[in-house]
């Protein structure tokens, strides 16, 4: 199986330095924020690796994983880290974040998929900087492929994936015939969330919870793995932004309230001051 994983590098909002708005509100100030792979994309990569290996130690690669990013040169570091955890090749489309919106990202990934012809496109359900949650669905439509968004479980079948999706009312299971697009949710990295035909056939087999870490020799070896750089306008002729951010604001902050000494005081406050019970 060949899997293409889309991976974005984001300024981590969960950071002691806090997200700030530049004076004038023209931009989000990312100075001091830590850059890291979008957590959902790290999970997508872990899922892709699980689908393309014999999970038993020593792990044996059985398929191919190609990681794709759109971003500046610094993101090569993120791609190398992905290669070190087991991905086989990387592609970077050379652009800066301010040259991108969800529509362009999807159009570019579509063009790469046309050339690479993977069986599965795996990606995060959302990038935690923009919280947009659109690229996977767009890519699926552009390709006219079936999709399963918000995946918590993936089970490989003959020519298809059985995907458990986290939806409002519970867990919805879809079967998508390959090739297909799958976007992943948080629970996809639980020990039994992803089963390939090989791992499913191993009684009692399970993964460690979470994503894997690259051993040192793999980090060295990753430096030699192929990393191609492409140009956005080669992939998307006439590429132009159609989402424009005019300004950013810091949302209203809540002030801390009072501490109550016990349950009776809490109930009294809720009933008589807040009047919500």
């Amino acid at each position, binding site marked *: 199986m060949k899997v293409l994983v889309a991976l974005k590098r984001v300024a981590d909002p969960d950071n002691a330095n806090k997200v700030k708005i530049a004076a004038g509100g023209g931009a989000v100030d990312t100075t001091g924020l830590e850059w890291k792979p979008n957590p959902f994309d790290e999970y997508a990569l872990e899922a892709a690796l699980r689908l393309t290996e014999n999970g038993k130690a020593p792990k044996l690669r059985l398929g191919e994983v190609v990681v794709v990013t759109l971003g500046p040169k610094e993101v090569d570091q993120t791609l190398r880290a992905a290669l070190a955890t087991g991905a086989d090749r990387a592609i970077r489309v050379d652009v800066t974040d301010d040259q991108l919106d969800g529509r362009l990202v999807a159009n570019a990934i579509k063009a790469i998929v046309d050339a690479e012809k993977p069986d599965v496109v795996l990606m995060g359900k959302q990038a935690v900087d923009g919280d947009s949650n*659109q690229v996977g669905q767009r890519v699926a439509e552009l390709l006219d492929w079936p999709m399963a968004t918000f995946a918590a479980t993936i089970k490989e079948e003959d020519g298809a994936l059985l995907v458990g999706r986290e939806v409002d009312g*519970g867990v919805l299971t879809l*079967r998508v015939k390959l090739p297909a697009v799958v976007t992943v949710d948080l*629970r996809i990295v639980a020990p039994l969330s992803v089963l390939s035909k090989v791992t499913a056939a191993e009684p009692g087999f399970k993964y460690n919870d979470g994503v894997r870490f690259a051993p040192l020799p793999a980090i060295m070896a990753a430096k030699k793995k192929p990393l191609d750089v492409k140009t956005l306008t080669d992939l998307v002729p006439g590429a132009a932004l159609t989402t424009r951010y005019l300004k950013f604001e810091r949302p209203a902050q809540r002030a801390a309230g009072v501490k*109550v000494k016990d*349950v*009776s005081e809490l109930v009294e406050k809720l009933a008589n001051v807040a009047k919500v019970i």
Partner: protein
Amino acid sequence: MANVLVVAELSEDGKLKKSTLSAITFARQALPAIGGALNIVVLGASTGAAAAELASYGAAKIISVEDASFAKYTAEHYAPSVVAAAQGVSLVVATASSFGKDLLPRVAARLDAAFAGDCSGVAAEGGKLVYKRPMFAGNASGFCTLETPIQVATARQSEFTAAEPSGGASPIEKVAKASVGAAAARVEFVGLEAVKSARPELAEAKVVVSGGRGLKEKFKEVMEPLADALGAAIGASRAAVDAGYAPGDFQVGQTGKIVAPQLYVAVGISGAIQHIAGMKSSKVIVAINKDPEAPIFQIADYGLVADMFQAVPALTAELKKRHG
């Protein structure tokens, strides 16, 4: 500019979901700027009752698309018919439920439209719609315009109060399902494992009680009586869900459900930014945590530093006593 199209959402049994009414409110706020009329499209295996209900919200027309293949929702079957209904409109909007989040970006791609997801506001500036979106786990609000002839957006349910009917009876136009792409034949609905509950839906509840990882196997034992005493929906932190103490659709937060009830009670939840992003618009926040330094206290109106295994049953008992 032209009309706005709202995409209605139906429940498994074909009833109109209340979430739809938030998208109608969004559309009503956008309409003055673009000067057109409201259209609503409803898709399902049996749409009669929902279409009739939708007819009282002042729409110029209700487009009703009935087809047996719509009994179970899949974007591959729905998107082409939404696209067909969007001919001549300049904005397509749905509520950012898991349905809207799944479907609308797919619709946007087919229309080659720009998309603004999970909007917390919409306003007109200089004849253009400006969409307000929470970003960076709710730490920034971005204001954007979309520069395509047709625009697509989803509305955050907690930020748009449910629309009230405005009377009248919109004409209902029945149309056939639009032809689908190759993808439709390659997706199969297998099943929905629904979490059956008599409690209100998280996104719509007036009171929400959420539990954290520290509750462990006692999650239900501690949280359910409290929820019952308050008529509340139950939520959870990501850590509680990851550990298997609560189902996935309980997760409140940046990447889970966004709630804004009258009263939110956080039990043994530390207050990570991702959690706060999903509940900070609640009217009154109560936090019960044994750690006086827990960040949740920085946003709580009423904080109780206590062991939850004692405090929550005591609170439940006191509430029951009050209600007799």
